[in-house]
């Protein structure tokens, strides 16, 4: 199963490496979102500093959704799903592999966005460990949910609008937890940042369990 | 808004929503039923029935 999972990861990352959509298109777009959010808040530096944690996750939500879409478009466009169904790769391996590949891509996006926030919104990190752990927890939860809902709308004609509608309510708790954890890590809130980070791990664990069990149903063709 | 206006608005909107939804469900059933040629044909005589379906 591990070998199969890694095979899927390698395939997805190779596709991404050749097309360079994540770094070439999605990351610049997400940076633009940061700029636009500053417009919305009238470039009020104290507001931006206070809201930086939340705004970061909103930008991740936006860019991440595009990456999830892309992750399944490359499968359905060329009928790769049929190839998967016929290959010996099991549904759980496919689920884990796609999640892991998405984790890497969203992680890269977050690196870019993190630098953007640091430079544009003038934030100071007070707890680097929490920041890192919360980012990892949020990204894992994000990727796992993304794969689960990405396959749900895969291959449908209206997927570009359907995926965000299905995805955002599910990601809402992650957005909430990520924002609060980041605010603690950035020193603008004294709340329990670690508890929020662990909540994201719990959400990730629950959705991983669902994904391992239910991915097969979602791949089946009638 | 006063309390009474609020209550009247709330109950009014609720009744409108439920009534509209019920009518939509029933009429949708009727329309599709007619398309399929399923209907409450017990009362209608066959000759009339033929006319009605050609109209649609």
């Amino acid at each position, binding site marked *: 199963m591990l070998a199969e999972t890694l095979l899927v990861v390698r395939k997805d990352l190779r596709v991404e490496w050749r097309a360079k959509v994540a770094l070439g298109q999605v990351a610049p777009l997400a940076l633009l979102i940061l700029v636009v959010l500053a417009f919305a808040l009238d470039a009020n530096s104290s507001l931006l500093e206070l809201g930086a944690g939340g705004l970061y996750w909103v930008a991740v939500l936006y860019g991440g959704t595009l990456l999830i879409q892309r992750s399944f478009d490359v499968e359905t466009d060329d009928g790769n799903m049929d190839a998967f169904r016929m290959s010996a790769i099991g549904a759980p391996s496919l689920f884990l592999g796609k999640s892991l590949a998405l984790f890497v891509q969203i992680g890269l996006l977050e690196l870019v966005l993190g630098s953007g926030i640091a430079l544009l919104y003038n934030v100071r990190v007070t707890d680097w460990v929490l920041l890192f752990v919360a980012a990892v927890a949020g990204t894992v939860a994000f990727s796992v949910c993304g794969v689960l809902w990405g396959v749900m709308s895969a291959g449908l004609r209206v997927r570009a609008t359907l995926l965000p*509608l299905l995805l955002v*309510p599910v990601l809402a708790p992650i957005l909430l937890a990520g924002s609060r954890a980041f605010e603690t890590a950035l020193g603008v809130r004294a709340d329990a940042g670690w508890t929020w980070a662990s909540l994201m791990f719990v959400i990730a664990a629950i959705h991983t369990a669902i994904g391992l069990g239910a991915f097969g149903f979602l791949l*089946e063709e*009638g | 808004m006063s309390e009474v206006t*609020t209550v009247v608005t709330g109950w009014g909107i609720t009744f409108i929503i439920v009534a509209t939804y019920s009518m939509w469900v029933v009429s949708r059933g009727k329309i599709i039923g007619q398309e399929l040629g399923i*209907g409450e044909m017990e009362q209608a005589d066959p000759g009339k029935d033929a006319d009605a379906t050609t109209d649609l």
Partner: protein
Amino acid sequence: MTSTTRSNAKMTATPATRVLGVLAIAATALMAVLGLFISPADVIQGEAVRMLYLHVPSIWIAYGAFVLTSVSSILFLRARKRREDQGRHYDRLAGSAAEVGVVFTGITLITGMLWGKVTWGTYWQWDARLTTTILLFVTYLGYLALRRLPADPMVRSQRAAVMALISFINVPIVHYSVDWWRTLHQKASLSVGRRPEITGEMYWTLLYSTLAVTIVATWLMIHRYRVIRLEELRDEEALAALISSRLKNDDGSN
């Protein structure tokens, strides 16, 4: 159309549901009389308490409908390979329950906001219950959107069933995190929305309203179920007609 299809398939109304429909209208009328005129005004909230008889039964019905959607989805996933009808019965049940649930969640939100305006002075408060409810509303709107898409019926139903299950598992996650979010730093504002003491006539009116709303929702669900079946029948016939016309065309060209 042959007479056999006519006698096999039925319209959405049957004698039993006609009786239920009349009962629903009568029950609603009595509910309005009890809720609007006979039950007393509240000591704290005054006349505004009459929103209670719509708001609370609606959310109970909505939750009940979503539970029904989840249970039917599980049964569908189990039955789709074993039963002759591929579990379509459960799929229709899940779909009709979800739609009725969405309607009543919408009613809950509207009545809640109006009620909030008059008691809290604002339409919306970021309180755990309200926030969970609006996310629930959007989630099931998404579920209905997924069900409506043009795709192979079995593929679509399977995806919808899995989505219904995950959404249901997500309800406590959403509620817990939002609840936690609000209680961590806004304890004071929660006391603004004082809940009235529900006793005596108010209690019985609430109980009766729940019964009346249940009858209405049941009637709606049964009819919606039958309409879904008619929709499936229509799609099948359209497909069959398309195939036969293609076959004819092929014959002509040869």
